[in-house]
């Protein structure tokens, strides 16, 4: 097996902070005879050691730290002052506003002002204001190359794993520690390999794969572990679709999710302007996985998660006929270009059921613009969709897509905990963009295979 070293020159700065990313520490004559998973290789490189073992506690140097307007400056200013430290390297910090955006209330306006002022004061150039949801804007902004070790102040940070990166979600105080020192301790996770064999039938998507896994292993089925997705169905997926798998690895408690980069990944990143010139790491063929879970895509049915947990996922038939007031295509999980195309394919030339709000919030401005240019947005609007600005919005019960008292909604987002999508009495269901769009037409939860 050949290992490649990827060099990524840091952008926006004269300072030399090129990263050597990949498995260089494991290559050549010094290569450890013990086979390793991708995650172990990335952690070892970031920890500056030859190899690591699951369970070991190591301190890693962080290649990039990402935060948004909720976990970011508004909560970091005081904490950094309390520590008595400044940002270790402003060139390795990415700030993306997405939680309290399209601000209309005084609290949200104040948070946006604090965020903008802080990045200016600290010289953070990797700043994206109202360009979309952080997990989608991070790769779109050209910040990722396979093999990086990153932290993010948001639980869906494992999304970056779709690009062969090791990225973990952390809380505010952990983030302060990273901002102050550039380092973080981690317990090296065991890796679970999820092999998605066969091919997804028409009308099914990555969302159905991950929802079925949520049901199968439960919300803590992969607690503290890394999940590596592989197999023919994953290989066949677009990068957008792969991001759904790594994004929702958070829903099974995983430390992170990851997919080895391939030519599709590299093409995607190059188009986004990332300084990519190699493929990053792969798990060694004889690497020790703690568990291998097989999912046969050929026989999978569309999945719908009933309130109030993604683990309540069952084949759509079991929830078919549930009347809905809102169908939401949104969030980092479910409003990328592929999701919008799936939804448009379903509703093209048709009309949304009366009494059902069909709400679409593209995951980023780039997604919105591309969808507009190719006519996807027009198709959605013709069918009766309301298009909202990009942001976390309806997924976290904020903005116009918030579910009202006793309302029932189906959403392409990732979580349906009690009260998350709106009122405490609301009922949130989860499904793929196909299922959400088909349900919008029917006014109740339906099997999308009858509509594709």
């Amino acid at each position, binding site marked *: 097996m050949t290992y490649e070293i990827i060099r990524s020159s840091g952008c926006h700065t004269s300072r030399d902070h090129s990263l050597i990313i990949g498995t260089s520490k494991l290559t050549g004559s010094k290569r450890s005879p013990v086979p390793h998973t991708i995650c172990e290789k990335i952690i070892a490189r970031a920890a500056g050691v030859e190899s690591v073992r699951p369970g070991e*506690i190591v301190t890693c140097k962080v290649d990039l730290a990402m935060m948004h307007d*909720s*976990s970011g400056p508004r909560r970091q200013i005081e904490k950094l002052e309390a520590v008595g430290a400044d940002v270790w390297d402003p060139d390795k910090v990415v700030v993306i506003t997405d939680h309290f955006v399209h601000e209309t209330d005084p609290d949200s306006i104040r948070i946006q002002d604090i965020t903008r002022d802080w990045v200016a004061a600290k010289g953070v150039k990797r700043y994206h204001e109202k360009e979309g949801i952080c997990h989608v804007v991070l790769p779109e902004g050209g910040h990722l190359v396979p093999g990086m070790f990153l932290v993010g102040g948001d639980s869906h940070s494992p999304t970056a794993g779709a690009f062969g990166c090791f990225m973990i979600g952390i809380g505010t105080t*952990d983030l302060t520690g990273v901002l102050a020192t550039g380092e973080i301790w981690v317990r090296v996770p065991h890796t679970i390999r999820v092999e998605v064999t066969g091919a997804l039938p028409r009308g099914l998507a990555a969302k159905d794969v991950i929802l079925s896994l949520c049901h199968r292993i439960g*919300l803590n089925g992969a607690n503290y572990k890394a999940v590596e997705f592989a197999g023919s169905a994953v290989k066949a997926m677009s990068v957008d679709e792969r991001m759904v798998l790594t994004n929702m690895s958070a829903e099974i408690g995983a430390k992170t999710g990851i997919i080895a980069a391939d030519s599709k990944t590299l093409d995607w990143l190059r188009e986004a302007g990332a300084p990519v010139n190699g493929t990053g790491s792969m798990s060694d063929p004889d690497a020790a996985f703690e568990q291998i879970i097989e999912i046969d895509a050929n026989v999978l049915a569309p999945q719908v998660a009933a309130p109030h947990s993604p683990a309540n996922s069952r084949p759509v038939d079991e929830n078919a006929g549930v009347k809905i007031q809102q169908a939401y295509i949104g969030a980092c999980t479910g409003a990328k270009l592929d999701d919008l195309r799936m939804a448009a394919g379903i509703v093209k030339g048709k009309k949304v059921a009366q009494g059902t709000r069909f709400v679409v919030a593209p995951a980023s401005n780039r997604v919105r613009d591309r969808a507009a240019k190719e006519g996807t947005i027009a198709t959605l609007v013709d069918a009766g969709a309301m298009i909202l600005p990009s942001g976390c919005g309806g997924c*976290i019960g904020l903005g116009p897509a918030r579910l009202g008292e006793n309302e029932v909604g189906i959403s392409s987002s990732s979580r349906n905990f*009690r009260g*998350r999508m709106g009122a405490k009495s609301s009922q949130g269901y989860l499904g793929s963009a196909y299922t959400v769009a088909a349900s919008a037409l029917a006014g109740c939860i339906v099997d999308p295979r009858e509509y594709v």
Partner: protein
Amino acid sequence: MAEGRAWVYGDDVDTDLMAPSAYLMKPADQVVRHCMEAVDPAFAKSVIPGDVFVAGKNLGVGSSREQAPQNLQALGIRYVLAKSFGRIFYRNALNLGLPALVCENTDRINKGDELKIDPVAGRVENLSTGETLECEPLPAHLVEMINDGGLIPHLKKKLARKGV
């Protein structure tokens, strides 16, 4: 060691319950009032300093929002016991200096039981039932941080020592 009354909940108590999204843009003292209101409106009003938050599997599943353990701490919760934790919640609680202890037998604890907890030894004495439960001691590499009161005071001390 400290004594406190138990508040007992089930599995999968998520971060949205402890810190509902709709209030996250509000100042901390307002967010805290809504802690657990979707399942137990009495909690935020009735908890007193020194109380212990007890749950089943996977406490703190969901978001990275640190307001979840922060709200518990602000309301006076002294220890958090659960069969297992959502990983970010676990780190967040310890980083705030709120000891989160893995205890396999939390279903032996009833609401209102008086508990006496030794986090370093990994022992929970249920004074109401007379039973002693074992829990996993705090991770050795984090004991100093928790004794310092959390990551912020710990880092401050470390950086001062380095003369930064």
